[in-house]
């Protein structure tokens, strides 16, 4: 079932939780709402479920306006952040709840619940109480309970937030398969970008009640649309530089930036991802003489920096450097095998060349 969100706004007291948000979710999509806490992602999810009423805007499902439809008639499966299992009911009765309130015949309830418990791999645990289950098991009960009513839309609020890392990764892959098998439209809320990128077909990054960017995981990761998205995705080197004449300057190193052809220099934020930097040892002999002492004289401009630390974490090795004229730090990530071949040592001078750079101008609307 496709979902069409049109101009949804919601205030809690003076806090603007959602500010004129519009979003179209095609049928069968697995979509992630990614953002920091307070960005409005959970509020949006609850409005789609009908658990919260918007101040303005409409929600449509397959073209039908459902804004004023009561949550209990929405037929939306909702998995709560802390699962909200019915504590006094057995696992079986938890899953059966949606069928029982619809006065489904007992035999049918039994068959459907057994089928779902099998689907979420909890066969034989029907008589347990939620308190007797592990976090991952509870999560799967919550999922089975939401699926029991055969929803066209599945909404999940931080579905893996409460689980330890190993269970989390396992459940993620399992949920992805489940989504594909059942063929519903699913939206989940997360503040974990790794989760969003791994699981979702599309990622919507939210901040302060607005959508910052929407796209496939690759699009969002490769082309962050705003400084916020860049910052939020994290693991990035940020520098204050300037732009002029189609070039951005980073510690005096010019980088092609055709988006700004104007002669007037403007301050800009320069973002460099650690894995998109090349690093090379300077030849021991003949240090290049250049009018700018900060960068070498090769065809490709590069920054001279001193290696501070080399730290290995699994398949990647991070080299922390300090640009010559600055107290700031710069991270470079290399595959561990490559780093081992070079065996950079703290104290030596290296040349760093960006393969890719993103520049954001403050207040772009003032660009002449």
């Amino acid at each position, binding site marked *: 079932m496709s979902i069409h969100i049109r101009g949804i706004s919601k205030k809690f007291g003076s806090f603007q939780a959602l500010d004129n948000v519009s979003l179209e979710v095609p049928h069968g999509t697995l979509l992630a709402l990614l953002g920091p806490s307070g960005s409005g992602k959970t509020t949006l999810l609850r409005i789609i479920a009908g658990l919260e009423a918007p101040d303005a805007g409409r929600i449509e499902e397959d073209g039908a306006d459902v804004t004023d439809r009561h949550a*209990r008639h929405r037929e939306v499966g*909702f998995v709560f952040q802390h699962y*909200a299992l019915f*504590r006094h009911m057995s696992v079986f009765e938890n899953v059966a709840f949606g069928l029982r309130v619809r006065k489904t015949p007992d035999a049918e309830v039994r068959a459907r619940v057994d089928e779902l418990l099998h689907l979420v791999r909890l066969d034989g645990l029907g008589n347990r109480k939620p308190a007797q289950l592990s976090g991952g098991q*509870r999560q799967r009960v919550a999922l089975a309970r939401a699926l029991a009513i055969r929803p066209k839309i599945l909404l999940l609020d931080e579905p893996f*937030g409460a689980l330890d890392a190993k269970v989390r990764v396992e459940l993620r892959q399992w949920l992805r398969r489940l989504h594909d098998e059942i063929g519903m439209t699913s939206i989940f809320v997360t503040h974990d970008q790794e989760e969003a990128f791994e699981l979702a077909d599309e990622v919507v990054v939210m901040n302060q009640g607005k959508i910052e960017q929407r796209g496939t995981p690759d699009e969002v990761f490769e082309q962050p649309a705003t400084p916020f998205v860049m910052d939020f995705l*994290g693991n990035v080197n940020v520098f204050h530089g300037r732009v002029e004449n189609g070039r951005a300057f980073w510690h005096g190193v010019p980088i092609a930036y055709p988006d700004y052809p104007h002669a007037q220099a403007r301050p800009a934020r320069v973002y460099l991802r650690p894995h998109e930097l090349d690093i090379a040892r300077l030849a021991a002999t003949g240090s290049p003489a250049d009018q700018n002492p900060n960068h070498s004289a090769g065809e490709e401009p590069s920054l001279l920096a001193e290696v501070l630390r080399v730290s290995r974490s699994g398949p990647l090795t991070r080299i922390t450097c300090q640009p010559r004229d600055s107290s700031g730090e710069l991270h470079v990530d290399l595959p561990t095998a490559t780093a081992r071949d070079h065996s950079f040592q703290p104290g030596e001078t290296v040349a760093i060349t960006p393969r890719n750079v993103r520049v954001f101008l403050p207040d772009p609307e003032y660009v002449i």
Partner: protein
Amino acid sequence: MANTLPTKPVRSPLDALLVTGAVATIGLLIVVPLASVFAEAFSQGPQAWWEAIAHDPDTRHAIWLSLTVAPVAVAFNTIFGIAAAWLVARFRFPGRSLLVALFDVPFSVSPVVAGLALVLIFGRQGLLGPTLAWLTLKVIFAWPGLVLATTFVTLPLVVRELIPVMEAIGPEEELAAVSLGANGWQVFWRVTLPNIRWALLHGIVLANARAMGEFGAVYVVSGHIAGATDTMPLRVEKLFQEYRTPASMTVASVLAALALVTLVAKVVIERRLEAESRDLAAVRNVAAEADPSPSSAGIP
């Protein structure tokens, strides 16, 4: 929690003095008076005790009256308590804290004042007097007045018990039930009530004990008519004033026995309440511990 408290052996003379003092206080204020009521009541033997109750029609009527007034008052309080606690725990609205403060008025106002206030409203000369006379309804000096007075003094007990429990449980389970298609009654009977049942029972037991023992407010509205509006506590006092101490102590012993039953029920229920809150904590804590802070996704 209790098993994590340190235990300390009695060593110094000061320790011994403090322990003796504590035991003596409890003994003198609680155990000895309670025991003496039973001793006095049964001083002529169980036969005399039974006769003092069964052969005095006014006493019989007082017991019967207490056993009918209290449950009706408690039933009112149960319905009011659930509705009010649900309103306060699940919604934010202007005047909410004022409303919560008003729930406590019956505790802070002297029961005698409460009784007088009821007379001023429902009495023959009172605000609603003419209306009630026209309807030929008698409230003051009659059964409805007793129920009103008892309901008033026990009003906070159920609602006060439910608000913190409902707030601790939170609305999530109810919302989950709604999203699964349950209507209001189904949510209440299948989710809310089972979750609050022990707190509710606790409130009911406390309200019932208070209702059975209420004296001041009931004294004012009852008119103290033997065989008509005397409840058990009023009967105890009247017999005592008439120098019929053994008979008075007999009725008092029935009240005291009810109190002991209440006490046992209270202990049993409180154990269940503790177990439930541990359950809740277990289900929530796993979640809370592993929940990484959103800031972990920041810039290095």
